[in-house]
């Protein structure tokens, strides 16, 4: 922790950055912190309760954050994939940011969860995560972490759903999505949902009905999952933010598995790596056209 605070202090004092975007404790666990004074750097913390993906704050559309000036951002490996995505999709310039990578052995589901990380409370997405630290970083802090261990198994859950027949699957998702009230927390916390005007907000034509009925909710969530194909960094923020408890991560995970099997692509924190959606290859499968 001291290493992180000292580094942040130095970055501010050397005027390398105007603000540090990191984590601090509040009454209910960890929350995002925006620190502009070197004297406040001792508020910075990092542990398994720092679940938020701070890359969401880096969108150029966040005018009040852009006003802070040059930022240093604390990122876990999964967050680094989002920063890489933003750079890859021309939302950010690598040189405009200082990236403080933190070593991570998995996080809990909610920042207010237990002080101890264990196999019961670990976020399902962390189980099987192979990246202990980001490659895309200017600095790396924290102790070496061991691979997270957990009981949750998303692939098992997915294969259970895949085993259902289409009617059963439809009825499962109809029931889950019926809880959506279209607060768009999923979109707002998503670092890759940075569109100037989201398709869900377009009115001419209104591609996606804004009403939270079955038709509108299906169009919204399926469209979002497809727009994140090969782009979702699996930070789990949409699912965590959903006040309706919809397992949105399952949709994204399913799409990611399809992208992996068809294009041999897994989202990485290398901004120069070409993505299936952003590149064209003659040998891409295109049987859906014929």
């Amino acid at each position, binding site marked *: 922790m001291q290493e992180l605070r000292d580094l942040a202090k130095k970055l501010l004092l050397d005027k390398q950055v105007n603000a540090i975007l990191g984590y601090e404790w*509040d*009454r*209910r*666990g*960890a*929350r*995002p912190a*925006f620190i502009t004074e070197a004297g406040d750097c001792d508020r910075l913390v990092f542990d398994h309760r720092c679940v*938020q993906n701070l890359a*969401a*704050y880096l969108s150029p559309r*966040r*005018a*009040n*954050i852009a006003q*802070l000036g040059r930022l240093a951002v604390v990122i876990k490996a999964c967050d680094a994939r989002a920063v890489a995505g933003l750079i890859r999709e021309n939302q950010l310039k690598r040189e405009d940011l200082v990236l403080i990578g933190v070593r991570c052995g998995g996080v809990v589901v909610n*920042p207010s969860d237990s002080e101890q990380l264990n196999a019961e409370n670990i976020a399902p997405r962390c189980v099987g995560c192979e990246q202990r630290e980001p490659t895309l970083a200017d600095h790396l802090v924290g102790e070496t972490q061991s691979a997270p261990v957990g009981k949750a198994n998303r692939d098992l859950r997915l294969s259970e759903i895949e085993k259902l027949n289409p009617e059963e699957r439809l009825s499962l998702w109809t*029931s*889950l999505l019926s809880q959506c*009230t*279209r*607060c*768009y*927390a999923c*979109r*707002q*916390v998503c670092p890759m949902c940075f569109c100037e005007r989201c398709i869900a*907000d377009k009115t001419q034509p*209104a591609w996606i*009905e*804004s*009403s*939270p*009925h079955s038709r*509108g909710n299906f169009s919204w969530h399926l469209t979002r999952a497809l727009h994140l194909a090969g782009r979702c960094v699996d930070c789990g*923020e949409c699912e*965590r*933010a959903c*006040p*309706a*408890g919809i*397992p949105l991560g399952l949709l994204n995970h399913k799409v990611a598995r399809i992208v992996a099997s068809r294009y041999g692509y897994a989202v990485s924190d290398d901004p120069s790596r070409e993505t299936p959606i952003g590149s064209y290859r003659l040998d891409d499968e295109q049987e859906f056209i014929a």
Partner: protein
Amino acid sequence: MNNRRMLNKTDFEDFVDSLLRAGITVIAPVRREQGGEKVEYRPIHSPAEIVLSGQPPVRPLKEVVFPPTEPLFNWKQTKASVQIEEVPTEFKETVVVGARPCDAAALEIVDKVMGWDYRDELWFGRRQAVTVLSLACPQSDDSCFCTAVGLSPESTRGADWFMSSVDGGFEIEILTPKGEKLLERCKDRCRETKGRTNAMPSLDAKVRANLNIDPGKVREWLEKHFDDPLWSDVALRCHGCGACAFVCPTCHCFDIVDELDGIGRGQRRRNWDACQPALFTLHGSGHNPRKDQTARFRQRIMHKFNIYPARFGEVLCTGCGRCIRACAAGMDLISILSEIDRKSAEEGA
């Protein structure tokens, strides 16, 4: 005859069962499907589903009288002429069992805006059809602050019956004519009783420890501090979604949209909306009166703790804490209100 009754647990369940058999919709806190410990208000099929302990339901009671989406009318067009088909403003009899006091109170608070000058028949139509049986709050957590906004874990506001858990059953206080009418349905099952026995220790002190402020002082401070560094500091964290508003029992902003159901027919609907997304106030011209998150976040606090009190005489908040629990960014109304309280004391001194 006084207005207090005792109903033992089996009789209570029989009573709920009799309501169901009479074709009355019964809504109660139940476990969320695939949601672990989480609870939500839903129509039940059997009294066994009811969960009266634990955390408050994730979403408040407001959707029972104000659905997330509802048709305002249907229309059909033939050539140049349009026919409008009205939607009913009378609704099916519904009984809510086990409402949290913070949720029941919210209905009365929102009645004011729904009824000033123009009366919203869809809101009041459902209000009329719904009988609310509140339960003395069984569990609070670190997000609760009802005592800071003039309510309490035993507040009877907005309830037709107020129920307290006692050994072997419930002690019931009948509060309204609607409550009396419902009592007719279980007269034989309950017996008269004297005052409240307070079998459960009150959560009052525990909730008060979370936040202890004077909303009047907060309002005075807000009145004078449209511009304050607090707004821009706190708003940095806000993602601008509608989660806080959609889980709020008192937030009532809405949108009106047209949808087509086919060629030449469709409906106009109203949908929940929230003041935090940029689109809420965006003009067709591109001008946006609340152009950044700082302005939008301030509006949320101002509306609840200054504008609504000025207009309707009380804060637009029941201290249920749902906005705090729901916020992905850790926006914490308790911290914000205590900060305002602190600033106000500092300036007053």
